[in-house]
């Protein structure tokens, strides 16, 4: 057991680092660009030099690298924090789905522009009435000759307004049980009939959109998998989603230790208060547990094993902890904990921002409750809840007034 690279890994790391240090664009170089332009700009540079999506096959724009090289590349790239965010859904979720389900023609046409950053993709799965219960989605697809006509509403779509394409799963047959009546497509987001509206969150951010489909025409050749096979195709996407989302944002214990050093309780640094110390120790242990669990996953990856359910743990533990830590940190500041006024609040109001953002982290990408179900069922092998909707035609399943 050791923390150092193998000689090959070290060589690769040095090469990657050297290239990155030379080529990551400076703030000045990016001046005037919005976030989408920045990401595209940087991605194009990587693509031209053969450093884009390095684990992908060369013929689709990648480098044929190993999983471990991808991990090393990610570590090195993230050290320098170049702009990458808007590309992650297309490259991390849409692309693996295309690789597995699309025909060669589609792959050759669509994967290289994904790798180069020319095309941005988004994911259109959730609907207002189908969150945790994704397979309850209602958006309709009806066949018309060689095309399909899509009608309905999607929600929680990041980047819908700047995306070129979207992956979408829809109901092609409401008369069969819910998992059987779904079909999966990719759509041109510039198609007539698609309307996008941002959703404002309580933190004030708008990271998501609602997307309305009104008679949107999609050619049948943009179907992935067979008609009625949408659920299986979605599973490919979701498996990669769980790998893509981490503990995600929020506070960490380093922030908390620093705050406790800088804040006083009864005239002494808060870090000397044993009630504070006990809380810090508790959260630190869990954060480190996640960190080293990640190391174990990376090791498995480097040995060619498929990482297990570690990411469900990371998201579950991280989200709850981040909320409680934000609340506790605000308490440390006492009356002033509520202040979000930038010039007066500790850390420019970021505690309040973390507090308001954390409820979303506990839900996005699978709620706490769904994560616990996944761990219980898929890891511990415990039985599913009784499924009252099992085998029932979709249009006969009970729904409530809030669906």
């Amino acid at each position, binding site marked *: 057991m050791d923390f150092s690279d193998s000689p090959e890994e070290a060589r690769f790391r040095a090469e990657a680092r050297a290239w990155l240090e030379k080529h990551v664009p400076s703030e000045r170089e990016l001046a005037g660009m919005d976030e989408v332009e920045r990401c595209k700009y940087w991605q194009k540079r990587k693509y031209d030099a053969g450093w884009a999506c390095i684990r992908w096959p060369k013929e689709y724009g990648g480098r044929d690298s190993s999983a471990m090289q991808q991990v090393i590349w990610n570590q090195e790239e993230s050290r320098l924090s170049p702009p990458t965010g808007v590309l992650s859904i297309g490259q991390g979720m849409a692309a693996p789905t295309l690789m597995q389900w699309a025909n060669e023609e589609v792959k050759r046409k669509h994967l290289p522009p994904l790798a180069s950053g020319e095309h941005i993709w988004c994911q259109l799965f959730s609907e*207002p009435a189908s969150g945790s219960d994704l397979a309850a989605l209602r958006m309709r697809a009806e066949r018309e000759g060689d095309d399909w006509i899509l009608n309905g509403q999607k929600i929680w779509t990041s980047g819908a307004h700047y995306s070129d394409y979207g992956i979408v799963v829809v109901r092609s047959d409401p008369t069969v049980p819910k998992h059987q009546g779904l079909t999966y497509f990719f759509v041109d987001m510039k198609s007539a009939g698609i309307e996008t509206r941002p959703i404002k969150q309580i933190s004030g951010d708008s990271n998501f959109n609602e997307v309305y489909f009104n008679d949107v025409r999609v050619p049948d050749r943009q179907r992935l998998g067979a008609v009625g096979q949408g659920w299986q195709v979605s599973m490919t996407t979701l498996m990669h989603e769980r790998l893509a989302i981490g503990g995600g944002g929020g506070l960490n214990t380093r922030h908390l230790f620093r705050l406790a050093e800088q804040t006083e309780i009864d005239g002494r640094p808060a870090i000397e208060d044993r009630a504070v110390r006990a809380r810090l120790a508790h959260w630190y242990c869990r954060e480190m547990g996640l960190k080293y669990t990640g190391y174990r996953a990376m090791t498995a990856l480097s040995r060619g094993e498929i990482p297990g359910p570690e990411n469900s743990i990371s998201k579950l533990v991280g989200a709850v902890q981040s909320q409680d830590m934000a609340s506790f940190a605000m308490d440390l500041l006492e009356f002033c904990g*509520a202040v979000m006024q930038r010039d007066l609040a500790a850390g420019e109001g970021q505690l309040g921002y973390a507090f308001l953002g954390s409820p979303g982290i506990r839900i996005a990408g699978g709620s706490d409750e769904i994560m616990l179900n996944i761990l219980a069922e898929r890891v511990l092998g415990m039985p599913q809840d009784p499924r009252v909707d099992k085998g029932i035609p979709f249009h006969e399943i009970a729904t*409530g007034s809030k669906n």
Partner: protein
Amino acid sequence: MNFELSDDQKLVREQARAFLDEHCPPSVVRCILEGEEPYDRELWRGIASLGWLGTTIPVSYGGLGLSHYELCVMAEELGRATAPVPFSSSVYFAAEALLLAGSEEQKQEWLPQLAIGEAIGTLAVAEGPGRPVPSQLKTRVSSGVMSGEKYPVPDGDVADFVVVVAQDAALGKPSMFLVRGEHLNRRTIETVDRTRSHAWIEANDAPVECMGVAGQGWELLENLMNRAAVLFAWEQVGGSDAALEQARQYSLERYAFGRPIGSFQAIKHKLAHAYVNNTLARSNCYYGIWALANDAPELPLAAATARVSASQAYYYSSKENIQTHGGMGFTWEFDCQFHYRRAKLLSLAVGSETWWQERLVTAYEQANAA
């Protein structure tokens, strides 16, 4: 043994609830959240015209002369409605401070105005981050004028006067002072809950009047905080019950996997825990209000007990209300955010849960040493 509110007090609650249902629906709260007004003036006038602001103010000063029992049910209902008005500042802080420590002139000047909502008062304690320590107060009063800054001050941007605890230079100890709003520099500041206005205030040689015995400002503050803590705890319990009810209602109407999500044990047990927390907190609030209404020596311990459990209960129910709502819960459009914001704001309004835990044990030790 009669550990229950009287029928009259329950009637007050029902009337308060009916009034707020009509005059303080979520749309009113949202209007303050999204707009620039510091509070809802129409609601404030309505509350004033019902006499709520003068509940515990003696009749001789223009109030209703009722007990804290009547006040606590109003606090509960205002909490339930997350009402966007400076009620707590004017009533729990300013009026209580005047009744505790005001001179006859001060009472005569301000209590009648507070009672009818013509004046708003508040209390300024904090001077930025951390737990205030009497010996380290930076705001100072010397030769009758005060200098220094205080923030956050609830409703400090709209208050006609502010009760301030400041270093009394002559004595080297804190005293309590009253300063008029017009003598302050002040600006509204952003907090986690915009439905309750807060300010940064600054005094530069502002003229002040002393309240109570000079040099006893900290003891007065402790007493005032204990009293306010009980009333805030009632507000918190009202809010917490409302958040639980919101979650419960949604869980019955929202279906997943062919059944209401409220039929899943993960949701049922979550809400059962919220119910347990709320029930324990409410029972502690009963004891707290008994101690407050009777000026009982148990007040410090009773107030801390009510305060800690109410802060915990409201945090839990407000965050799990969002969680129960799933994705919609954390959207701006849904009203779940009102309780989540308010829960945090109230839990800091008179000192954090941690602080009150510490006060609780101190009060326990003192009670058992006596």
